[in-house]
Every structure is written in structure tokens, then in C-alpha cells.
């Protein structure tokens, strides 16, 4: 019955068929990314990696690919050759590195015009400075980002929380873990899943605290976690990070999806301090007031009311969560009403809003896969490797699950983790890069170009940080106004294209683009062309 409703809804919308295919192999992404045990996992550290990124490291206008690896391999950087193929340039770009890699985020922290890279680890994080697209230099120590103990760093994001034009850095911490003291599968009540002894945690393992580093503007950072209040929440297993000005006060707030505990919404007070207001603002729990197992997180103004909404992927036997921003960063859990209540057999990870047919409404894709390979022994409908989920936005505040009819790429089964969203061939359709555990990555691309028109906005800060992270855009084309924001981090421990993609349907021109820069400048551009990448440079004082 649900299926017949979905088909009817599609007919009414006149939506075209969607056909995602996995083109990773043809694109040259043929290396498997190791991440812990294949048949079973003894420790939680084997279950959480790793992220993926789209970034244009050499400013050639084409998105390159970065994949984070667990031990037994190296992180990998693939250069976009421009013909649908990528070449592995990890070694020559100085990015070979092994360890328990977790997350990745990008941003031009030194404002030199080249996008830098930050990679989180269980162990020591690494800040790579981009040397004019010719290589990366590990500047972690020089930047003052060495940590004095082993930490389980997960999601990260560059943000300019004090709007001084220099990108600061937020790093989520999952929990305190070390191999020597970690309990083994079955050792206590937190080491079981439906009668199976499995890797222990997160419950039963000690909490850790999140970190905020302030950019001093001279290539160094200062840990301001305590002074800023970021380290205050101390009962959360933090994973993914989403930044955004959720209450439109011109200051970047931080949302953190937390596993088995309340998610965090750090509200930025503008004086260098934050407080966690997730509970009163309705973004900590589900609509029953229950903490879910937050994994990935994504943002979009999915209903076109001008306010940024939040989607969070969760564990199996839980619903996904769609928080509608009713204004001023007050959220309501509208998962049920929006039509997202049915997919409770998936463990969701990377997620993102994307306009699959360029109609001007943001759809939603999330990738899945259970944490324990052992779960397959149970013979239940929860699987270690599972398909993705694709929801079409009806434009009326509701989503329809179109996964089964959206092509073989969506239906392929993997134990997916990080997912990055970006248009790597600049054809107006957003592709999805997925980091799968102990497999080659997935690169989801539509087999046919979406029908609607589009535009990709590349913003460049001048007084604001060069990456324009934190810039908010309102775009009007035809009778629709859409909004979005430039973000570092997001999804599950991943990095999306820093450019903003807008589908504009049948509109032939972009009537108006309004930009609120982090510097406070308000810039308006009018009458822009469609179906192209447009670079907009900040006009200070505008």
C-alpha cells in the first residue's frame, strides 16, 4: 500500500525516474579501504571509520577525492582528471598516513587561496597545509594542534565562530578508549547485541569532551574548549558535526550528533562562549524525549521557509530524525509527519540533502550498514551490509522513499560510513562518494542528467575567511527562493563540496542571490546565468 502511494505521489509531481549507478570502478577508485575486522570486530574503534571528502585541492575547478582509512592502508587522495576518471596522487602529494583514521574536514585556514585538510584519528590528528596545490605539509605541531594524550577524535569542522576572518576548528570526541583496558566482546552487559557477544560500547565506556581550537591568525591555534564552554557537555558520545547559523544571529552554531546520548546544539553567544541548548530547543532527543544513536547529520531548508532544518541518521530499531526549524533554532521532530518513520531496520551513517532532479527542492540520501559483521549470523532483517535510502522531497514538507526505484547504485549493499556530496564533473547533478568498510568506495552518479536547470555558487571571502565558510545564501529563481550555507564537515565524519548547488527547475535566469557573509557584509547579485558554476567574491562593505 505504501508503495502504491509512493508511485501515485511521483506521478502527481511529474518527477522523472532516477537512476543512480556506482561508477567508482570506471572512475579509478579501485582500492579497498581497510577498517578493522571483516568477519567480526573486537573493539568499537573498528566500527566507526571512516569519512570521505570532495575538495578541489589544486583550484582547477574540479572536485578531487579524499578517503580516510583505518590501519592496514593509507588515506588516499585522488586527483580528478576531468574525464570522469581519478588518479591516485596520495604519495606525491605527501598524504600517506596510516592509523585509525576517522573524519575529515576542509577549509582554507591560512587564507592563502588553497583548501587545507584536517584528518581526525583515534590517536593523533593531522592538519595538512595545502602548498599551492602542489603538495600537503603536516603542520599539526607547528599549528599547536598536537594532543597531549590519545583521544578518539571523530567529526570535525572548520568554522569562524568569532567572525574574525580566520577559520577556527571544532573536533568532536567520541569516548575514551584504549586497547589495554577496553572490555572484550561479551565481557559485560554492554558487549552484547541480541544474544551475540560483540564489540563493547559506546555505553559502558567513559565519556570524553569536545574541542574547539581558536585560529590565532598566524598559522597557530589555541585550545579554547574550556573558556568557550565547548568542553562543558560531558555525557555525550559525540560523532558527527554540523555547523550553521541556526537562529540567524550572524553567528555560527554547532550541532553534534551523539551516539546513545543526547545530541548537542552549541548556541554561539558571540562573546566567545557557547552553551548546549539542544534540550530546550528540541534537538537533543526524538519526539518521545528519548536519546537516539546519532551517527550522521545534514542540514537544509527542506521546506523553503528560510530556516535551516537538521536531519540525523540513527541506529537500527530507531527512526531517522528530521528536525524542523520553526524559527530561531527551535526545532520540532517531524520525522513521522514527514514520512520518514518506516526505515527502522537500517543503521544510518553518511547523509546529505541533494536536489536529484534540480526541481528546487532538496531530497535526501543516506547510506547504511550495521556496526557488527556478526549481526548477519542472526538471520534477521538487519544486515552488516545494506543498501542506501533515497527520499524524494514532495515540496509539501513530506518525503517519499524512492530507494527501490532509484537504480542499482542505491541498492548495492555495503557497510557504508562516510558520504560526501558534490558535483565532481560540473554537470549540474550532485554525485555521492561513499567510504565503505573494507571495500572499495562507492561513487554514485545518475545515468542521465536531471531535467531541471541549476547553478553552482563558489563563494570567495575577502574580509571573511577565504573559503566563505559560514556564508548564508538566499537564491531566488522563478517563483522559488531557496537558502543554504557554506559548511565544513557534516554528513558522517565527511566533507561535502564547499560550493553550493541549487536546482532551479524551469527557471531560465537566477533573479537574485543574497549573501550574508561572516564579516557581516550583505551582498546582492542579480540576473545571473543558469547551468554553470558562478564564482562570487565578497565585496567588503557591501
Amino acid at each position, binding site marked *: 500500500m505504501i508503495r502504491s502511494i509512493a508511485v501515485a505521489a511521483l506521478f502527481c509531481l511529474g518527477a522523472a525516474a532516477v537512476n543512480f549507478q556506482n561508477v567508482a570502478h570506471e572512475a579509478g577508485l579501485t582500492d579497498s579501504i581497510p577498517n578493522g575486522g571483516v568477519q567480526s570486530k573486537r573493539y568499537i574503534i573498528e566500527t566507526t571509520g571512516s569519512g570521505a571528502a570532495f575538495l578541489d585541492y589544486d583550484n582547477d575547478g574540479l572536485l578531487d577525492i579524499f578517503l580516510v582509512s583505518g590501519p592496514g592502508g593509507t588515506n588516499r587522495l585522488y586527483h580528478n582528471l576531468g574525464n570522469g576518471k581519478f588518479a591516485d596522487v596520495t604519495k606525491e602529494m605527501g598524504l600517506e598516513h596510516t592509523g585509525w583514521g576517522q573524519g575529515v574536514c576542509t577549509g582554507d585556514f591560512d587564507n592563502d587561496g588553497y583548501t587545507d585538510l584536517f584528518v581526525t584519528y583515534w590517536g593523533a590528528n593531522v592538519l595538512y597545509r595545502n602548498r599551492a596545490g602542489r603538495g600537503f605539509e603536516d603542520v599539526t605541531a607547528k599549528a599547536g594542534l598536537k594532543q597531549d594524550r590519545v583521544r578518539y577524535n571523530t567529526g570535525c569542522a572548520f568554522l569562524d565562530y568569532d567572525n574574525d576572518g580566520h577559520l577556527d576548528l571544532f573536533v568532536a570526541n567520541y569516548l575514551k578508549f584504549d586497547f589495554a583496558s577496553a572490555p572484550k566482546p561479551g565481557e559485560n552487559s554492554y558487549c552484547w547485541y541480541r544474544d551475540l557477544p560483540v564489540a563493547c560500547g559506546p555505553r559502558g565506556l567513559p565519556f570524553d569532551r569536545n574541542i574547539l581550537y581558536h585560529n590565532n591568525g598566524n598559522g597557530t591555534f589555541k585550545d579554547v574548549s574550556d573558556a568557550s564552554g565547548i568542553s562543558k557537555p560531558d555525557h555525550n558520545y559525540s560523532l558527527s558535526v554540523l555547523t550553521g547559523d541556526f537562529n540567524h544571529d550572524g553567528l555560527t552554531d554547532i550541532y553534534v550528533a551523539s551516539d546513545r546520548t543526547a545530541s548537542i546544539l552549541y548556541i554561539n553567544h558571540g562573546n566567545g562562549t557557547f552553551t548546549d541548548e539542544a534540550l*530546550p530547543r528540541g534537538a537533543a*532527543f526524538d519526539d518521545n524525549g528519548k536519546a537516539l544513536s546519532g551517527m550522521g547529520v545534514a542540514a537544509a531548508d527542506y521546506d523553503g521557509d528560510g530556516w535551516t532544518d537538521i536531519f540525523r541518521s540513527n541506529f537500527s530499531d530507531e527512526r531517522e530524525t528530521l528536525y524542523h526549524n520553526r524559527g530561531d533554532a527551535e526545532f*520540532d521532530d517531524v520525522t513521522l509527519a514527514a514520512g520518514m*518513520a518506516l*526505515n*527502522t*531496520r537500517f543503521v544510518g551513517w553518511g547523509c546529505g540533502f541533494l536536489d536529484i532532479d534540480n526541481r528546487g527542492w532538496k531530497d535526501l540520501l543516506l547510506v547504511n550498514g550495521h556496526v557488527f559483521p556478526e549481526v548477519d549470523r542472526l538471520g534477521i532483517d538487519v544486515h552488516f551490509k545494506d543498501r542506501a535510502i533515497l527520499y524524494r522531497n514532495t515540496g509539501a514538507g513530506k518525503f517519499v522513499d524512492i530507494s527501490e526505484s532509484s537504480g542499482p547504485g542505491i541498492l548495492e549493499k555495503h557497510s557504508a560510513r562516510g558520504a560526501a556530496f558534490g558535483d565532481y564533473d560540473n554537470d549540474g547533478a550532485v554525485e555521492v562518494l561513499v567510504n565503505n568498510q573494507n571495500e572499495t568506495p562507492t561513487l554514485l552518479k545518475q545515468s542521465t542528467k536531471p531535467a531541471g536547470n541549476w547553478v553552482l555558487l563558489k563563494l570567495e571571502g575577502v574580509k571573511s575567511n577565504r573559503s566563505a565558510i559560514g556564508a548564508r545564501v538566499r537564491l531566488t529563481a522563478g517563483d522559488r527562493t531557496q537558502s543554504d550555507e557554506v559548511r565544513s564537515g557534516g554528513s558522517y565524519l565527511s566533507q561535502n563540496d564547499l560550493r553550493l548547488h541549487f536546482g532551479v527547475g524551469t527557471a531560465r535566469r537566477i533573479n537574485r542571490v543574497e549573501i550574508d557573509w561572516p564579516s557581516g557584509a550583505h551582498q546582492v547579485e542579480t540576473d545571473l546565468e543558469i547551468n554553470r558554476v558562478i564564482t562570487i567574491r565578497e565585496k567588503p562593505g557591501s
Partner: protein
Amino acid sequence: MMRVISTALVLSAFLARAQDDPLQKGIAAFNHGQYAAAQASLEKAPDSPQRRAFLALTHAATGHCDTAREELAAEFAKDAASDLGRLTGLALTQCMLAGGDYDDAVPVLARLKALHPDDADVLYQCARLHMKAWNDTLYEMFRKTPGSYRVNQISAEIFEIQNRYPDAISEYRKAIEKAPAALNLHFRRGRALLLESHSPENLELARREFEAELALNPADAAAEYETGQILLASQQAQEAVKHFERAVAITPNFPEALQALAKLHLEATQYAEAIALLENVVRLQPANESAHYSLMLAYRNAGRAADAAREQAELDKLQKSPQGEFTDFLKKLGEKAPKQ
């Protein structure tokens, strides 16, 4: 039981004086779990209430309950509130359970529980009593009425607890085939289907089960509520409302149904209606975290910041309590709402 007795006993002060006194020597040996030595020493000691009590405890510890029971009962009756009384009570119930005398154990454990309500050993023995009774009755049921639908029903309930939902669903089906008019079977099968999966197929199958339950018993508020929840998940909010309203009409103090209605009012920005319903729910269930959470958001959305802050404080208090997890566990077991 050895562990119960030895860990519970901390009588180290006696050890120092145990060198020559056979009574103290016997008690010390008992505390070390050296029951043969304890018995030898205690039998040499002059007669005293303490000697008799520890000798009985030693007999109980070595499985000679027949010898021990009378003395244990006497000591327990004398001073059940003392440490020795607690010990003899525990040993006595252990002997009774071992002998299958559950009816005799019930009043002893009830007294122990009244005197030592937070005592882990006492609560453990209570749990064992019920577990033994459960096991024995179950065995009897399987032996005497193997073909009855109740055997399938109880099997299904056990499978549910073990998370073996497909097996549970199958057993409920067999029970329904044998007793099509029996109440609660369709409801439990519907619940098991929902526990197995929230796939559209399972939702539809579960909805049919709840409707079948309602056909048998139109006054089943829980079945009305579950039907409403499925319709809600299937984007049929208007239809769902009717079922929630019927559930409340049948059972006016049905917290989950009241809350479901409140959430729909909240969604429709009918804050006054939502608040009235939720205030009723928290009155009915002051420890209901979910209701306090919904009420906090309802106040917030209605612009009643002070009331929202008060609810948040209440929620903070409740979330520190471990009760939530156990409540969730009970819900998973498929218990219907209370007072139905």
C-alpha cells in the same frame, strides 16, 4: 547459596577470638567456607542459641536442609531483623526452594523483603522463587497440555523476550488457529510483528492483527492505540486520530493515547489542546519522561517559557533515574498500558 551466605557475612571481629573458643573457631571456619571444620568445632562448643544457629547454617550450606530447617525457622522467628535473623531467613528460603516448598518460602521471603527492602541477596532469592515457580509451572503445562493454545502462546512470549520475533509470530499464529476467539493473541502477534520490523509489509500485517483483536474485543483500547500508531507512520494522521480518540473513550486515562493526540494537536499548532492533554498525562504518570518532554515543547511553542523551563528541570531530574531503561524493557515485553 554458599556465596550468598559467605559474602553477606562480615564477622571478622570474631576471627581474633577464634583461637581457642570452639564456637568462635566454628564461626570463623564457616565464614571461610570450611564447613567440615565449622561443623566439627561447633559440635564441640557448649550449647547456645548462636551455636545452634551457626550449626544450622552449616548444615544448610552442606545441603543437609532436613537437619537445619527447624533451627533456622526458630532463629528467624526470634529476630528476623538482625544480621543473624537475615542470614537464617535466607538459608531457610534456600532450603525451602531446594525442597520445592515454594508456598512455605513465600511468607519467609515476604518478611525478609519487608525488613530488608534494598538487600540484593533478599531480592535475588525473591527472583529465584518466582523463577522456580515459573519453570515448574511451565514444565507442568508442557507435560499436561501440550496441544493447548496456551502452550503456543507462552512459547511465543518467551521467544519475544529472546528477541526471536519470527518464532514468536509463528507461535502466535498457531495459537490463533487453535483458539480463534481467544483474546489478546492477535494483539500480541501484532506487537511481535512491530518488534520484528517497521517495514511497510509488517506494518500492514500488524494493523490487520490489531483490527482482528478489535473485532473480538471492541473495547481493547491498546489495540485501538496501536492501530492509530501504524496509521500515523503510514501518513494517515486523520484516520489515526479516530483510533486514538476511541482508545481514550474506552480508557480515559490511557497515557500513551492521550500523548499521541497531544502530539497531533502540537503539530497542528493547537497548543492549548496539546497542553491540556499533556498536563493530564503527567498528572497520571509523574515519572513519564516522554510526556514531560512533550509538555516542555508544547509550553515552549506556546510561548510559556517559564513553564517550559520548569518541565525541563523535571525532565533533568527524571533522566538521572535508571527507571527509564527498565520501563523501556517492559514496553518491549509488550505489556499493555496499566489499568486496562
